């Protein structure tokens, strides 16, 4: 059994609206998968169904081979879930809270203290064990929530917007923690921040209006959507000659030029083949001065906008 999560035709209807609409996807063991979508796309609802908090209206979801509705307790034993708002008991101390949560999740005796210390170290909470949760900063509270999700060493970690409301340093720390989880856990995290997915996830599921609109690695998504590459070269030379030479390169379909302080920027749209070495050779051969040569990366952000906008126009 390779799949940690299997979701088939999952649908969730609230009174008057469909939050999740016939969604199917799989997450393999050991993967870090990012669940990406604009606000209100159905991310949290899907995660809540997977964590057995809400039942689905239709379809099926399995975690580690157990149905989330029929074998809810088995599923809950295997997941660590951090809800979006990081709910904690503000009046408890960090150690107390983690120890209570560990006990609740069936971590007993000697192992409990050991696990609490381990997750505290992992999440950078070693110095605040005696502090009262309610007096901690937002960043530390988020870490306590993460530590809670990890304390029983779950097979699957589900994090709903783990970096929301944090400052850049805290975000970096949370991302490092998530990356470190990859070795031992499967991770499904939701976010509406794109760089986060590019940095932490091996695979992206883009969801919009309750439907999965794309699922792939960030790199593949980029090339697939772009349909080709865009190469930018800044050179000095006779403009028309250079353009003509560039058209001769294999796969180049279009060349546009812009002038900038005596240099010319050539943008080439080309096929799957990387023509950058050929551009360099052509420049060397013809004696053009080459200042810059790069492949324009379409950011995941563009893909995201493209995907979600197309969807909206269809509607």
């Amino acid at each position, binding site marked *: 059994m390779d799949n940690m999560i299997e979701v088939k035709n999952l649908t969730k209807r*609230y*009174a008057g609206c469909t939050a999740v609409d016939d969604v199917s996807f799989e997450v393999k063991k050991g993967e870090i998968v990012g669940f990406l979508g604009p606000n209100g796309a159905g991310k949290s609802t899907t995660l*809540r169904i997977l*964590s*057995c*908090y*809400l*039942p689905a209206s239709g379809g099926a979801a399995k975690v580690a081979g157990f149905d989330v509705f029929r074998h809810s*307790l088995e599923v*809950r*034993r295997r*997941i660590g*879930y951090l*809800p979006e*708002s990081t*709910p*904690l*008991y*503000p*009046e*408890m101390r960090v150690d107390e809270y983690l120890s*209570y*949560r560990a*006990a*609740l*999740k*069936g971590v*007993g005796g000697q192992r409990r203290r050991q696990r609490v210390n381990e997750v505290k170290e992992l999440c950078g909470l070693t110095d605040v064990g005696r502090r009262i949760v309610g007096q901690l900063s937002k960043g530390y509270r988020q870490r306590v929530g993460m530590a*809670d999700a990890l304390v029983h060493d779950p097979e699957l970690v589900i994090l709903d917007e783990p970096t929301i409301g944090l400052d850049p340093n805290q975000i970096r720390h949370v991302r490092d923690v998530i990356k470190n989880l990859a070795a031992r856990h499967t991770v499904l995290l939701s976010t509406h921040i794109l760089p986060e997915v590019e940095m932490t996830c091996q695979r992206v599921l883009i969801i919009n209006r309750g439907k999965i609109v794309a699922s792939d690695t960030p790199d593949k998504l980029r090339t697939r959507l772009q349909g080709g590459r865009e190469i930018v070269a800044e050179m000095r030379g006779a403009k028309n000659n250079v353009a003509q030479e560039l058209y001769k390169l294999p796969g180049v379909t279009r060349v546009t030029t812009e002038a900038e302080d005596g240099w010319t920027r050539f943008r080439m749209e080309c096929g799957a083949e990387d023509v950058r070495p050929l551009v360099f050779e052509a420049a060397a051969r013809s004696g053009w001065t080459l200042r810059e040569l790069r492949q324009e990366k379409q950011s995941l952000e563009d893909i995201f906008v493209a995907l979600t906008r197309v969807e909206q126009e269809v509607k």
Partner: protein
Amino acid sequence: MSAFFTLWRREIAAYFLSPIAYVMMMFFLVIMGFSFWLLANVLAQGVAGVSIMRELFDSFFFWITTLTLVPVLTMRLFAEEKRSGTIETLMTAPVSDAAVVLAKYFGALSFYMMIWAPTILYVVVLRAFSPLAAPPDLGPIAASYLGTLLIGAFYLAIGLMCSAMTRNQIVAAIVCFALLCVLFFGGFIAFIARVDTVREIANYFCSLAHMRDFVRGVVDTRPVVFYLSGAALMLFLAIKLVEARKWK
């Protein structure tokens, strides 16, 4: 089972981690202490025909504290978890809905018993220094505490059910207080109804009449069954209310 005890321990700890426990304990002890002081004064004057247990367990003070104490003790049980969102982490932990409800219930009941525990001193004092020829017997004392426990068991279950209905603690407290008043004052029909059948029916749920039996040392099985089955019904409803999020 171990999850139940973990939850139960946290529920009791939660009372002591918030000011509620101390405020309620003080409120309770001030009123009960005043009641005891009045009783001691009456006894000192040597007034004949005073029922000591009745003055302690069936007085105006007893009922006013019970009716106000219960909503305050139970209002936060579910409402606070819903408001703060911790219900989500709680219900996604590997514990059954029933274990959560029962742990909260027994947590509240345990705290209720802790609040009552210091009053045992009053009884000890009365037994040691009673000017009357016959100090209060152990039988009526035990029956009075049993009655207090049974009434608490049912009333707290009502409060728990109210808390499971809403995410607002104030609403939970007010609904609970209203239900308790209906139940308590509705029982007065047992004293005023002209028709015998109505009076007999009202006798089944009249807490005041039940307590008058308990303070005399009479443990009738009818009120025992009434309070226990009432508590069970309320707990069942509370479990269903917690599950209700899954029906939406």
